């Protein structure tokens, strides 16, 4: 599939030639430099941007041929942040997650709905915070509330747009723990992550998105330059080329984790950007 910009000038593909799949119980981490089109790709999966060519399908059915309610029962989307009405409580927010399973007019939750909502709150550790207003929550709590709302949808797939952005270490690990738990429940998860170390820990598959400057085009269009298991994708030469940084690879024997530490901006890329301007 591809996404084109709508501009008066000639159409330029923001991101093109993507071919990717996600299975239930699988975690797909989407990585790449800022502006490489990760969010565009995510919005495409979330049925918020229609691809200019190509298709996205679930079980062989094109998502744009699906009823929007049916789609919402299959796929939940967790935005990076939410400009919520401040007086809304966590409970009220998570209850709205039941919407795709309700009548269009009814605000009432059935007993089963209530059970689903409280289990979603419980899984995200929010049971005690149900009555709290959203503007009283910390960043990590707010992110968990958004995930709980997605869980209340009882989806088969959850898409997360940078769920760890703006969170400190502890909250990042909390989100990662929730993702691991969802994976065990056979929910397929696609998430944008910036931290290579977090990706390496939870992802079954990493898609590396990056720009590829083509001759004759002013704006580089992006594509998936590599996809596969963390071992296959997180390689020194590839990362250096895509992010233009020098990385150190460290093995921590205590936790038995491979750690990636950005050291410096790569010299090649500085020359490259200088020659471009």
């Amino acid at each position, binding site marked *: 599939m591809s996404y084109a910009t709508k501009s008066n000038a000639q159409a330029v593909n923001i991101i093109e030639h993507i071919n990717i799949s996600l299975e239930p119980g699988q975690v797909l981490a989407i990585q790449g430099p800022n502006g490489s089109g990760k969010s565009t790709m995510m919005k495409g999966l*979330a*049925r*918020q941007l229609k691809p200019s060519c190509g298709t996205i399908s679930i079980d062989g059915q094109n998502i744009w041929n699906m009823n*929007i*309610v049916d*789609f*919402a*029962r299959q*796929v*939940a*989307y967790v*935005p990076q942040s*939410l*400009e*919520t*009405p401040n*007086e*809304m409580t966590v409970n009220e*927010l998570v209850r*709205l*997650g039941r*919407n*795709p399973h*309700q009548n*269009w*007019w*009814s*605000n009432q939750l059935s007993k089963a709905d209530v059970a689903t909502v409280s289990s979603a709150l419980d899984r995200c550790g929010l049971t005690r915070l149900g009555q709290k207003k959203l503007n009283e929550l910390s960043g990590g709590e707010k992110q968990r509330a958004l995930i709980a*709302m997605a869980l209340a*949808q009882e989806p088969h797939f959850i898409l997360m747009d940078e769920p760890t952005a703006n969170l400190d270490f502890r909250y990042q690990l909390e989100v990662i723990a929730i993702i691991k738990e969802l994976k065990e429940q056979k929910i397929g998860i696609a998430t944008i992550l910036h931290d290579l170390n977090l990706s390496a820990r939870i992802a079954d598959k990493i898609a590396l998105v990056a720009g590829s400057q083509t001759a004759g085009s002013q704006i580089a269009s992006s594509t998936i330059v590599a996809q596969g298991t963390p071992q296959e994708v997180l390689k020194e030469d590839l990362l250096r080329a895509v992010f233009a940084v020098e990385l150190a690879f460290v093995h921590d024997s205590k936790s038995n984790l491979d750690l990636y530490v950005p050291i410096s901006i790569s010299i090649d890329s500085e020359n490259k950007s200088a020659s471009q301007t």
Partner: protein
Amino acid sequence: MFVKFIALILFTVAIMLVNLCLGDLTVAPLEAIQTLFNNGGNSEIHDVIVGIRLPRLLTAFVVGLALATSGYLLQALSRNDLADPYLTGVSSGAAVGVACAMLLKFDFQSIPFFAFVGGITASFFVASIARGGGHGVSVAKLLLAGIALSSVAGALITLAMTTFGTQLMAQGLYLWLLGGISGRNWQELVPTVCYTAVGLIVAFAAAKQLNLLALGEETASSLGLNVGRSQLIILSAAVLLASSAVALSGMVGFVGLVAPHLSRRLFGRGVRLQLLCSGLTGAILVLFSDLLARTLSPGQELPLGTLMALIGGPFFIYLLSSSLDQVHSH
């Protein structure tokens, strides 16, 4: 919460009764109520109460209810507290529609329809500007487009009036524009109220959609809401309400701004509760303003729109200055 709501209803009934009793001819409350329910008694009092004050009182009630509910819906759609049918130019569009209907000599039953056509055209115009080139609605653009549209609409009405209308017609139109509800009779009230009722029913039926839209368009759509369709239906209801109010009383501003704000402060949350409380608060505001309009200077009457502007204008300035940070951050 329940107590507050009962108090609101009692207050509405009380101010209706005061409106019924006070005026050039003062009637005792008990006598006024008796007059309402039996045809006998002093026929002069009967004529004043049933023939003049009752339709006027109900007009004020409907205008307040419609404008406040419309304001609530527009605020929910734009996700900003500063939206209101008057400030966004919807009322002006409806006024052009009414002026056309009057100048083309359509009968009064078709006036609300013309008002709706004018109002919905204006709302599409303003919405397309406010949404242009960005995510969601820009409040600054919304209000500026409203101002621009209102001045063009005012100019169009004046132009049409001076070119095509007789002097008598021009005078009538001018008085109506200022926001007057004097001399409203049953024949004008009943057909318009049907439009208002449809708007109110749609608004209450869309409570859940309003709740979801409060989360923003992206999230609402990911929860299975057909965002475009819901917005169109809610906008139509808001315009229907505003234009029915304009058809009845001309340009009465700020009710849709003040009433939802007061109601949010005073009563609890929940879309349906807020719709009800905003509506009643708006009705009380207009009833109160009309009472002042009729009684402040004995023997003559102030236009309702003028009084509402005196009350609502400063309130708008207060809201604007207290939410300036919000406007900037959007």
